[in-house]
Structure formats: structure tokens, C-alpha cells
């Protein structure tokens, strides 16, 4: 499918979302909205310490509280044969600590669950949790990313020295040689602070065991219900998949945090079966800050080698990645394959070498959060490009243009494993420069500086990678799962269509976009199409939604099934029209004989014939449905240019956003309105990392940002409206030509803002400040600067 200049059908049109009527009327169906008669409620007893030995647990007072049905501890779960939560991506020599759903022996982060209360109401369950007395022997805590490996306190096996893995990519020798030739070397240490995902819907789970059928049903806030079923069933609870149904109804945002298997759903599922009663648990926001997997948390040393004229010759990076107390499901992949492979950015860098050390600390586990490794890479390379420009006295635009991978070089093999599918970087940069009015802006910036106003312009000519693939490669790199996507398209006798997709929307609008694909391909109204997702009892095995994969993979799987259906329908049409199959055309929902448009059958004539099978081709099976699993040959690589314009107030350090331009190339778009929406939200999250958000722990490992009073999720009055634009370079690796749009904003915007702030502060001689660029940090830097702002 090529990009239509002007969409002529549903594909490519900004169609209003079909899921919205239920959401705007309060009729959405989120996990915590589900009530089952006779349902009990769970509350967890959590460690107030970051690191402690559990000496004893006395639950007698809790058990005696009226309305309490049971109290369970980790010892009971272990005795019942409940396994620990496994890791889904293994690296060479990786250390995988045992992670029980309820702690046994030791707790390793504040908020780790040590016991569960099952009670008749959530209020009683919470009361009872407060009555459980746990005797702890408090141990020193390891919290600092950079020094964890040298700490005398060990979280796990002392021989590990708090290291989970040491990993590298690229050619160290070639990189050394590049530095030997360099005329300029730019070095910088970067902190990429820890973030919390903060999906507005807190995690929740409800389990119901049906003794009559021996089936356990789990409703859970999941981005990937089949992954939940597979891992919880096969690896943790020992449940056969055909007797274990996982349903993720409407999911209120995820941003990665709802990919993973968490202790609470394991406990709720197990306890429901054990007690024979339905049980619901819903996280409080405080619990979310303590237990939802967090993101980022890197300390990196970067060095860039450049020629005299600003050509990048090599890049050397050493990163320490804080993984938290345990390895969350896909945590090993995030700071390695999803990070270091993107360090080439949009540039032709002949030699790159990166080593990554993953460390354990007494903090909440870290895993994929919107962008997952790519924002860390993008921030590093885009800051380095701007630093290099500053050091070499070049324009941040010129140095980027000089090093861009040229449009005729695709597919392009980078020095860090990836082969970019397609790209054309200059038009996106040109469009962004035009939209922001760069020439005029430089004049205004100079004028403002004369008046003591500090305006900065920041660039991010980013690249990112979506829909990791193919499965065979992912498997070779350590993935314990395939990375395809599935679709089953069922055409009903009267011509309406149900799509069963392995993707699962948690805000992306798949019920709309996937129906657009079907309506386009079959020439039928969108009202005739329903999309079913999020239920392992209805949908074939699928991998779920994360990594901006659903359009490229889930959408393509649907497209493949539709081709199979059209092919079969043509056979039926040929039979009914008494024509050769090769002569049958299908257009606008009609089958006709080429050259004789009056010899025609409606789509519904064919669908009915397929199920009646009276007047029917010999040897053809009745029915009209098709299943496909789409496993592409490569990732897709969206790209673009973001430009931020900010003003830093000298007397307060406050950053005002003046302008934000985002030109993204996400390949073909199914629904530009939805793409715009995801870009807006992504930009907001990336700006928040640049300016405000940060998860903090004190040296004892106590979280200092465990509520929305301390953790600075941006509000409407902190942001501005964004100016978005597009170039379109279709991806050649999937039949829709789409690339993925869910994370571009988050990936691109953090360095754009950081570069803008540093540019604003350049009159003070400031070349770098670590994010988040809070007023206190900027004010302090300006106060102590030598340049004095002149």
C-alpha cells in the first residue's frame, strides 16, 4: 500500500474515534469497574524499609478482625508451589535473582509486598493490613546508580557485586582508531533520571475461579493479556492455558508500565483459586509509585570524536543502568538492545562502541517506560551533537545536516547492529525550520539577549525504532518470546466483520484504526466492522501493545488476513459470475468481471454464498475467515525534527515554553488525528522529563516522590499547544507502510528542550546541566556562572 496523497477512503482519514462515546459518558469498562457478586478484596502489607531481613510476621490480630477471610505470606505461597516472577529477556551471563510475589526472608525495596489480606471490603482489608506486625532487621540500602557495584552491601548473591550484567556492542578497536584520528573530542557525563510512568488508571486485578469448569479468569490492567496468561500460567502458577483466561478490558493508559507481570496479580489469582472466591485488588497511587516498574535511570560517560570540519568519526559510551531491586520482565533489553543500538541516531557514525553495566539497587524495579531505551539514546546523541556544535563553533543545524545519513543510503547499516529501513531526514528538518521561523528567531534571540532576556532554541533530529523484529533475531538476542502479531478476521454471512487482534489498545484507538484498515480493504462501512481485543478467551495468541508496534504489526496482520479473504472471495465470485478467477476485479465492495462492470456481485452476495455453499466452487471450503501472524523482516525507524524555543527567567530560573514544533515522519498514517494526539502526549511526557519529573530516593532508599504531590506530572497550565507537521516516508518492511507513532514525541522532545535551555544559558558560559532542568538548578547555575549572562 503506498501513501495516498489525499486519502480517498477510510485509510489515512482523520475519523473520529469509535471508542469515545463510551468514554465520554462514563460507560468505559476498566478493571476496577468490574464487580463480581460475592467478591472479596485484597490489600497488601508492604515493607516500609528499602532493605531488611524479615525476622517474623505476626498476622494474628489481622486474622481476628471481623470481615477478614485470610492472610497469606510469602512462605505460604512458596509452600504451595508458586514460583517466582521470571525474566523475559536474557543476556549472556545475566544474573537473575529469585523474585517471589510475596517476599520471603528479605525485602529489597520500599513497598515490596510481604503479606496479603483478603477481606470482605477494601476498607477492612486496609485496616487489617495495618494490624500485621512484621519484625524487620533493617540493613543498609544501596540506592546510587553510579556506585552500586562498589557498595559493600549486596542485594543478592555477594559474588554478583550488585551487577546484573555487563554488556557491550560495537567495535571497540575501530572506535579507538576513530578517536586517534580525531581533531576534536567532545566529552560529557549525563544523568538520565528515573521516571514514573503514571498511567492515570492505577493497576488492578480481579480473579475468579470456577470450580465447575476448573477455569481461572483474571481481569487485569494489561497491555498484553496473552503474555500475562503465558507467563503467569506456565511459569508462575502452573495453570494450563486452556483453563486460564486473562481479560484486559479498557485500560487507562500504560506507557509500558502495564506490560509486566506484577506480584499483586499473581497473589490475587492464586488466592482466588485457593479460597474459591472472587478477589479484587486495586492499587492506590502511592502503591503505584512504590511498585509500578519505573523508567530510565542511567549514568553515562560519552565521548565523541570529530574531524576538523565537524564530521563525527566515532562515539564511545559507557552507561550504568539502574535496574532496581529485581529484574522486571523485559528490563535487561531496555538499557541494551533498545538503547545502545540507537546511539547512531540519524547520523552516519562510522565507529561506535558502547558498554552497559546493569546494577541492582534497593529501589523499585525499572523496565520499559514510553520510549524504553530510545529516549536515553536520543537524549545522549542529540545533546552530544549540540555540545559538539557549540565546541566547534558550528550551528546546531549545520552539524546535523553534515552528519545525516543521506536519503540515498537506505537501507542503512549502522555501527551498532541496526539496518534502518527507510529515511529522508533533511526535508523534516527543513519543514521544522520553516515552521519555527528559524532565521527570524535567531534575530529575536540576539535582540532579547541584549535586553537581558535568555531565549534558547533547541534541536532534536531524532530517530527511533519501533516494532522489534523479526522474532528469530529477537530470540537470538535473548528474547524469551516471539515478536510477531496476530489477527483473525471473521466475515459473517451477511457481510459484517469481526476482527480479533492480538494487539491491545490502552488509549491508542485500535477499535477505530483497525476498522479503517478493514473498511478500506473490503470497501464496507466502518459500522460493519467490530474489533475484539484484550481477551484470551476470544482472541488467538497475540503479543500485545508496546514499542509502537500495533499499527505496523497488528495492523499488518489484519491486512494479511484481509488479502486471504479477498483471494477466497474472488474464487467464489468467479464461480458465481462464471468467469475466470484471474478476470475478477474487486473495488469499492464489488466484485466484477474485468471489462464487464455490469457482471457484478456485491460483497454481501459473496459472504452469503460462502456460508450457504450451495452454488459454490468445487473443492473450496465453506466459510470466510482467515488468521495471520505477521512477523516482519525488520524494525521500522520513524524520524523527524523537533525544535523547542524556551525562555529562562534570570531572577527565578523558571523556564517558559515559547514554541514547540514537531515534524515527524511515521510512514503512512492510518488516522492522522490519532497520530497527532499521540505525538502531543509524547511531547508532554518528554518535556516533563526535561524540566520537572524525577523519582527520588533518600540514602536509606525511602522514596521521596511517592505521590502526585511530589512527583511532578505536568498540568495543563505548564504546557503550551504544539505545532505538528509531517513528512511521509513509507516503511518498506510492512504492507501498510506504517512506522509507529506512539513514542516519537517522548523520544524527541527531552533533548530538544534540554538543548534549548542550554542554548538560552550559553551567555553564562554554561554548556551542560543534567535534567530535570528545574528552576532551582538553573538559578543556581546562573548565580555561580562566570559569564554573568553577557
Amino acid at each position, binding site marked *: 500500500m503506498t501513501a495516498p496523497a489525499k486519502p480517498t477512503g477510510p485509510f489515512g482519514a482523520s475519523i473520529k474515534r469509535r471508542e469515545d462515546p463510551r468514554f465520554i459518558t*462514563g460507560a468505559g469498562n476498566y478493571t476496577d469497574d468490574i464487580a463480581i457478586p460475592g467478591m472479596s478484596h485484597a490489600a497488601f502489607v508492604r515493607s516500609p524499609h528499602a532493605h531488611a531481613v524479615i525476622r517474623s510476621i505476626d498476622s494474628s490480630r489481622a486474622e481476628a478482625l471481623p470481615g477478614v477471610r485470610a492472610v497469606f505470606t510469602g512462605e505460604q505461597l512458596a509452600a504451595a508451589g508458586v514460583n517466582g516472577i521470571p525474566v523475559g529477556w536474557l543476556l549472556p551471563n545475566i544474573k537473575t535473582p529469585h523474585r517471589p510475589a510475596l517476599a520471603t526472608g528479605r525485602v529489597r525495596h520500599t513497598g515490596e509486598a510481604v503479606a496479603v489480606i483478603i477481606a470482605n471490603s477494601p476498607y477492612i482489608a486496609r485496616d487489617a493490613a495495618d494490624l500485621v506486625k512484621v519484625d524487620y532487621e533493617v540493613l543498609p540500602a544501596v540506592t546510587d546508580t553510579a556506585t552500586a557495584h562498589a557498595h559493600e552491601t549486596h542485594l543478592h548473591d555477594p559474588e554478583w557485586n550488585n551487577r546484573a550484567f555487563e554488556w557491550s556492542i560495537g567495535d571497540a578497536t575501530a572506535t579507538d582508531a576513530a578517536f586517534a584520528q580525531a581533531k576534536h573530542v567532545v566529552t560529557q557525563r549525563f544523568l538520565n533520571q528515573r521516571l514514573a510512568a503514571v498511567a492515570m488508571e492505577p493497576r488492578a486485578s480481579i480473579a475468579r475461579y470456577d470450580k465447575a469448569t476448573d477455569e481461572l479468569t483474571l481481569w487485569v490492567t494489561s497491555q498484553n493479556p496473552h503474555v500475562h496468561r503465558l507467563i503467569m500460567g506456565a511459569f508462575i502458577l502452573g495453570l494450563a492455558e486452556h483453563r486460564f483466561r486473562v481479560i484486559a478490558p479498557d485500560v487507562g493508559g500504560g506507557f509500558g508500565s502495564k506490560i509486566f507481570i506484577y506480584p499483586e496479580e499473581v497473589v490475587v489469582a492464586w488466592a482466588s483459586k485457593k479460597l474459591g472466591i472472587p478477589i479484587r485488588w486495586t492499587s492506590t497511587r502511592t502503591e503505584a509509585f512504590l511498585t509500578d516498574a519505573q523508567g530510565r535511570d542511567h549514568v553515562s560517560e560519552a565521548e565523541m570524536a570529530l574531524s576538523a570540519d565537524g564530521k563525527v568519526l566515532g562515539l564511545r559510551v559507557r552507561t550504568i543502568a539502574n535496574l532496581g531491586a529485581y529484574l522486571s520482565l523485559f528490563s535487561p533489553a531496555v538499557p541494551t538492545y533498545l538503547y545502545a543500538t540507537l546511539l547512531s541516531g540519524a547520523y552516519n557514525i562510522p565507529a561506535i562502541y558502547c558498554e552497559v553495566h546493569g546494577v541492582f539497587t534497593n529501589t523499585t524495579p525499572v523496565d520499559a517506560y514510553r520510549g524504553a531505551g530510545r529516549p536515553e539514546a536520543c537524549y545522549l546523541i542529540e545533546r552530544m551533537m549540540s555540545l559538539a556544535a557549540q565546541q566547534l563553533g558550528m550551528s546546531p543545524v549545520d552539524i546535523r545536516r553534515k552528519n545525516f545519513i543521506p536519503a540515498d543510503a537506505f537501507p542503512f547499516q549502522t555501527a551498532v547492529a541496526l539496518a534502518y529501513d527507510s529515511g529522508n531526514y533533511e526535508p523534516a528538518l527543513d519543514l521544522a525550520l520553516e515552521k519555527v521561523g528559524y532565521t527570524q528567531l535567531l534575530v529575536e534571540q540576539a535582540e532579547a539577549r541584549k535586553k537581558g532576556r535568555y531565549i534558547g532554541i533547541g534541536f532534536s533530529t531524532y530517530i527511533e525504532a519501533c516494532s522489534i523484529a523479526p522474532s528469530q533475531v529477537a530470540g537470538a538476542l535473548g528474547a524469551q518470546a516471539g515478536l510477531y502479531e496476530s489477527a483473525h478476521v471473521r466475515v459473517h454471512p451477511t457481510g459484517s466483520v469481526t476482527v480479533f487482534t492480538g494487539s491491545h489498545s490502552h*488509549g491508542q484507538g485500535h477499535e477505530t484504526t483497525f476498522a479503517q484498515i478493514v473498511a478500506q480493504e473490503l470497501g464496507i462501512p466502518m459500522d460493519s466492522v467490530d474489533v475484539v481485543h484484550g481477551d484470551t478467551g476470544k482472541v488467538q495468541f497475540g503479543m500485545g501493545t508496546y514499542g509502537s508496534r500495533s499499527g505496523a504489526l497488528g495492523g499488518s496482520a489484519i491486512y494479511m488476513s484481509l488479502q486471504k479473504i479477498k483471494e477466497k472471495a474472488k474464487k467464489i465470485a468467479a464461480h458465481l459470475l462464471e468467469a475466470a478467477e484471474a478476470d475478477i476485479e474487486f473495488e469499492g465492495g464489488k466484485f466484477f468481471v474485468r471489462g464487464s462492470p455490469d457482471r457484478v456481485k456485491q460483497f454481501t452476495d459473496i459472504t452469503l454464498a460462502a456460508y450457504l455453499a450451495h452454488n459454490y466452487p468445487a473443492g473450496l471450503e465453506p466459510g470466510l475467515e482467515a488468521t495471520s501472524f505477521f512477523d516482519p523482516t525488520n524494525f521500522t525507524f520513524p524520524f523527524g525534527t523537533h525544535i523547542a524555543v524556551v525562555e529562562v527567567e534570570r531572577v527565578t530560573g523558571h523556564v517558559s515554553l515559547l514554541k514547540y514544533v514537531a515534524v515527524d515522519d511515521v510512514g503512512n498514517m492510518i488516522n492522522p488525528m490519532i497520530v497527532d494526539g499521540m505525538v502531543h502526549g509524547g511531547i508532554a511526557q518528554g518535556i516533563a522529563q526535561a524540566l520537572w519529573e524525577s523519582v527520588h530516593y533518600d540514602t536509606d532508599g525511602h522514596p521521596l516522590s511517592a505521590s502526585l504531590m511530589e512527583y511532578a506530572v505536568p498540568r495543563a497550565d505548564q504546557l503550551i499547544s504544539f505545532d505538528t507537521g509531517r513528512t511521509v516516508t513509507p516503511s518498506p518492511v510492512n504492507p501498510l507502510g506504517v512506522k509507529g507513532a506512539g513514542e516519537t514525541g517522548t523520544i524527541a522532545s527531552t533533548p530538544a528542550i534540554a538543548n534549548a535551555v542550554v542554548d538560552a544559558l550559553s551567555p553564562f558560559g554554561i554548556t551542560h546541566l543534567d535534567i530535570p532542568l528545574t528552576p532551582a538548578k538553573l538559578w543556581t547555575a546562573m548565580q555561580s556562572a562566570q559569564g554573568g549572562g553577557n
Partner: protein
Amino acid sequence: MTQITITVNGSAEQRDVDPRVLLVHFLRDELALTGTHVGCDTSQCGACTVLIDGVTVKSCTVLAVQADGSAVTTIEGIAVNGEHHPMQTAFWQEHGLQCGFCTPGMILSSIDLLRRNPNPTEEEIRTGLEGNICRCTGYHNIVKAVAAAAKHMADA
């Protein structure tokens, strides 16, 4: 247990409640009005916003007994003659929602915002919504939706 009578979306509801039960839990668990959501436990996020006697309140910060005798409007009760409220229409039209979780609270706050200021500037909309957190939209289309609703309601 304390007996309370609250008029919810026009219907008088008499119930015996535990005095410590929050209004939001009363609405969700007792009346099965699950459109009002709980997104935090510190009254920051605004997902639980409802109208009490026409004024926005975060229903996680009010005990059900405190609402005794008052009229509560939730997202389920804002339709006008069976049609979407103009604010609901505007959120749909302008793509002012993605995951939908903050949406009920956001719509109720926006309705109250226009009640106080029928013709707000972008800045006034942004300031007016600072008590409601959205993590999906970056607020861009929410601001557009409120402006569109204001225009529509002024023209009507």
C-alpha cells in the same frame, strides 16, 4: 451506619453507609456509577471530579455523609435530553481523550470552568484545568475541546 439521602443525577438515593466511606466509593460501589474514577489518593488528579449542587468537587475528598441532602451530578448524568452535553461532543470531536480514564473528571471540570467563565482564553482554560491531570493528550486537544465547547455553547 448512617442513613443518607443524596440526589444523584436527578434520582433520590437513600442508603445506610459507613460514615468513613468516601463519596467516590459510594458512587462506584453502592450506586454502580463507575464513570467517576479514582486516579490518586491525594486529591491531585481530578479523575473523581463530580458536581455537588452544580460546583465541582473531588469526590475522593468528600465523605458520602457530607453529601447528605445535596444533589450530585456525575458523568453519567450530564446528557441533555438524551443527547451528549456540548462538552462531551467537543471532547469527541476534537480528540480530547485517549485512554479515557481522566475524561469524566476532565469534562465535569470543563463544564464548571465554562459556567464560571463562558468565554475563556487558552491561558484561562489551562489554568482552569490545572486540578485535573491527563497523561495521554498533553492537554493540547483538551484545550481545543473546551474552546470549541465554549464557542458552541455561546452560539447556541
